[in-house]
């Protein structure tokens, strides 16, 4: 029972660490972010692109 608890507890830890790494550290393409909008809005130096 103790071993099972250890396995489950450390699995939960791995999932938690994995989630935070995925959320904050992985670059955007790997995390499957939305496709970049390539349309320019047309205004000079508007800063939107």
């Amino acid at each position: 029972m103790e071993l099972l608890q250890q396995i489950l507890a450390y699995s939960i830890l791995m999932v938690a660490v994995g989630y935070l790494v995925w959320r904050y550290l992985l670059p955007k393409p790997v995390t499957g972010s939305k496709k970049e909008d390539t349309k320019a809005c047309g205004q000079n130096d508007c800063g939107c692109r």
Partner: protein
Amino acid sequence: MNKSIRVALIGNPNTGKTSIFNQLTGLKQKVGNYPGITVEKKEGICKLPNRAKAHIFDLPGTYSLNTNSLDERVVAELLLDQKDGDYPDLAVVITEVENLKRNLFLFTQVKDLRIPTLLVINMADLIPKKGISLNVDALEKKLDTKIALVSTRKGSGILHLKELIANYHNLSAGPTTVISKIAPEYFSKLKQALPTENLYRLWLAIAQKMSLETKNAIPPASLPILSHKDLKQLQHRETVLRYQFINNALKETYLVDFKTAKGFRAVLDKTFTHKVFGYILFFMILLTIFQAIFDWSSYPSDFIDAQFSEISGWIKSNFPAGILTDLLAEGVISGIGGIAVFIPQIAFLFFFISLLEESGYMSRVVFLMDRLMRPFGLSGKSVVPLISGTACAIPAVMATRTIENWKERLITILVIPFTTCSARLPVYLILIALVIPDDSILGLSYQALTLMLLYLLGFGMAIFSAMVLNRILKMENRVFFIAEMPNYRLPLLKNVGYTVLEKTKSFVIGAGKIILALAIILWFLGSNGFSKNFRNAETIVSERIEKQGLTPYSKNYIKNNIDLYLKNIHTSPTDRDQVSGKRAIQDSVRIRTRNLEENAKRQEIASYKLEHSYMGYAGKGIEPLVKPLGYDWKIGIAVLTSFAAREVFVGTLATIYSVGNDQEETIKNRMAGELDESGEKPLFNLASGISLMLFYAFAMQCMSTLAVVKKETNSWRWPLVQLLFMSAFAYLVALTAFQLLK
């Protein structure tokens, strides 16, 4: 199989476009009153009566196709680009019955692009109430279109609208005006240059400096060139021409009896936007909201807090002992509990904000604040994102797209994180409850006043920073602010309820995942260590207790507990029945003291272990940095982890204080019981509490906001400036506050 019809919903802001979109598609969205709320294109499928389907696009609200802002430009770009996959088969222009004249300006522009165009007159239920008489048949003839009278509030007219959409082939695609009238010679040259092109479409593309995506496009050099001044003059002539047409169309078809219609709204508007009473009223409303947040939400909040303590205790006593049970009871449940206790407060906040938006009052606040913002280099357009910032800085930063002047937009983006977002609320609430007396002055609670002051401080800091940035960045040109003043309406409870549900859900789920993950990691770091002290904690602490006794805090805690118990024996019938007689009382006190001493010993061991755990060493490492602010290493850890998101602060502390804690205690009680290094004074006292609140008021503790600022400014420069300035400023203010108050 029927082809799906592409339908674009177009209209001025606040005409109820989003509500019509919801009713056509069945999708749910937020419905608000202040301008610029629809900044993204939204899509949905609508089933039509003839079994056909319509693909509906809810385009951003725009006053005209002569664009001023990014979201208005989205509309013009789509309508000019026939190659765009979303180019509509049918344009449905939404207007509002009270502002029909102004709304029709956009209608005439869209129809002149030769797109089949339907007119929807929304809020039709107000026609009799407002003394309006409308001849729909005559107006249809004048405008050469079909009209649907709709009331989204009553849910009427939608079926008729669906029928008109299904039969859109019968609509005329003819123009309303002859655009060449504004400059016959110039338009004749245009016609020669591009003979097959729609003249108005061509003119619009030239005026908006957009490219035409047509097969017949020729190089711009061959088109007659206009100076900027001439271009503006022609645009002015176009406006006059369109209003001539609209006035003519409405002259006999739309009549209003102003005597009976306008009185009450005018009085309300005068009061709400009054340069003195308007502000007083606004601050009174704010104060009422904060008072309600504290008074009303404390009952459900305390209930939730107690339930999580119960669950934690139940897991410990019913699950087999081991690491998983400890993780669940001390890490997971405490972490989730740390955020769940704030659900009532957040729900109440959004309930009131939604009421203000739905009733139409928020638009008056925007107008009122525009006056206040002008001296600081901002306009009322910046107020919308700043007010949105009270919910979350991320959509607020995105809402700045409605600001056409880049420097004004940049300044607004940079100052938005100062406004008090909902993530700060849990931090403020727990600290206020700990360090501000639960007392009142003139019926106003000190705690509610403190919360309101923190909100005002955030807003004040935002406009002060805007003023400084305005001088540094030297804004070149000013913009004019057009605020929509929607009708006052009784808030629809359905919309209010949906807003509350959506906001609370996104707060809990969005923040909850991060908090839970951090709580798990922190629990492991707090429950494991590499040093001998950690491994031998039990022996070390037991030997120390044998030699020196329990710590002064533990002794004091036991004494208070026994005093309370003795007092209850004399006053509480339950306790008196259980223990009667002097001897029985003495025995009972002895047993109780022994149990409390055992608990205190376990608590001291847990505390010692935590201090020598991985987390303890990390916390001690940063302690020199946070100690001058009045924080210990545990608060230091919470400040560090809450860099991901502010609300993580409370969850982190809840987890840290739960590690090794066997007692069923609420988060607030655990924090209230923490002592400073002297072991005599509470750690969370007025000085350290104020210091922490000020730190969170000014610090840039949100990674997601930094990411969205980077996206919106297309550079790391601005988020880095934001991060460094805000962090340094927050540190200095917190340091000063603690040193002055300690």
